[in-house]
């Protein structure tokens, strides 16, 4: 999509003074709110309906998940730094931070892969019980979003070496950043609603 709205493309800027893609992205994020809203409410509604073990309190590991939450927050931080760098035209700084974001995103995915493997070894599978179904589908969908984000950022990273990412085209980075931060805020909700609440009630 990116070349569709190159700077010299007359279709780029609209009558509200905002680029089309930014409006598209925010509308998409609004849509994604409903997407994750449905998944999270599925998880919450089915809390306490599982008929078999293992249950969350049997297998959740809060220190581990907290660490991966910190990792995702850290990547969000690097994302704003990357955007800030490219808006000032500092290409190498942008590359560094972008690589960092993708790296920490991958670390987060690594944590998730570890967690999933661990859970499967503890007997929690998609079909074991309702907790397994709802948990894996919710966090797995989020993981897919993270993976797409990593792919996107790596594309930008490589694209920057053939002149695809410049100060004038910093919108490309900003859009990717919006997506990445959204993935982060979804995790904020999931972390609270799925993991932390489990430890209190």
């Amino acid at each position, binding site marked *: 999509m990116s070349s569709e709205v190159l*700077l*010299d493309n007359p279709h*780029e*800027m609209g009558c*509200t*003074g*905002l*680029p089309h893609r*930014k*409006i598209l992205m*925010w*509308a998409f*994020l*609004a*849509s*994604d*709110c*409903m997407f*994750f*809203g449905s998944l*999270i*409410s599925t998880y*919450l*509604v089915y*809390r*306490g*309906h599982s*008929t*078999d*073990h293992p*249950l969350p*309190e049997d297998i959740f590991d*809060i220190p581990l998940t907290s660490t991966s939450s*910190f990792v995702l*927050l*850290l990547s*969000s*931080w690097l*994302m*704003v*730094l990357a955007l*800030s760098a490219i*808006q000032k035209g500092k290409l190498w700084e942008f590359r560094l931070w972008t690589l960092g974001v993708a790296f920490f995103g991958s670390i987060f995915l690594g944590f998730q892969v570890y967690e999933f493997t661990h859970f499967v070894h503890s007997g929690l599978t998609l*079909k074991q019980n309702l907790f397994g179904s709802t948990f894996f589908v919710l966090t797995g969908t989020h993981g897919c979003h993270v993976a797409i984000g990593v792919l996107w950022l790596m594309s930008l990273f490589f694209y920057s070496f053939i002149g695809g990412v410049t100060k*004038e085209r*910093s*919108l490309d980075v*900003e859009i990717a*950043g*919006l997506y990445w*931060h959204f993935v*982060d*805020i979804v995790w*904020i909700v999931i*972390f*609270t609603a799925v993991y*932390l*609440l489990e430890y*209190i*009630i």
Partner: protein
Amino acid sequence: MSQHASDLDFEHDGHHQGGGHPSVLFYNIIAISLFVVTALEVGVLYPPLSEAGTYFRVILLIVLSIGKFAIVVAFFMHLFFDAPLLTFLFAVGMVIATGTVAALINVMPAAEHPLQPRGKPKHPPVESATPAPHALLEWKNQRPS
């Protein structure tokens, strides 16, 4: 060409409030406060509190995560500095999503309300009896009335 380029640049765009995007230092402060809030969230779990403290913790957690959510959306995603139209777009989705989730949770015939403390023991293990696909007739509703 240059005319288009300047449109993309936030500093020159009349639609953006605050007249420019924040400095790196600002981002760093935001990021550190996010870390602190997350640490607080995890910390909330550990001090031993009575049953009444449970509600306090739930409310505190919800407040803290809403705060984090708002900070990321407002500053990392620039919504605070950006055109109000974008805030409106996102708010439409957020408001309807939040309302729908709340309504769904309350209207479902939940065994227990998902945000209420549960009594223990929680789930006596029941015999697993997944039916073979062809054994349709054995597949009965197991929930006691």
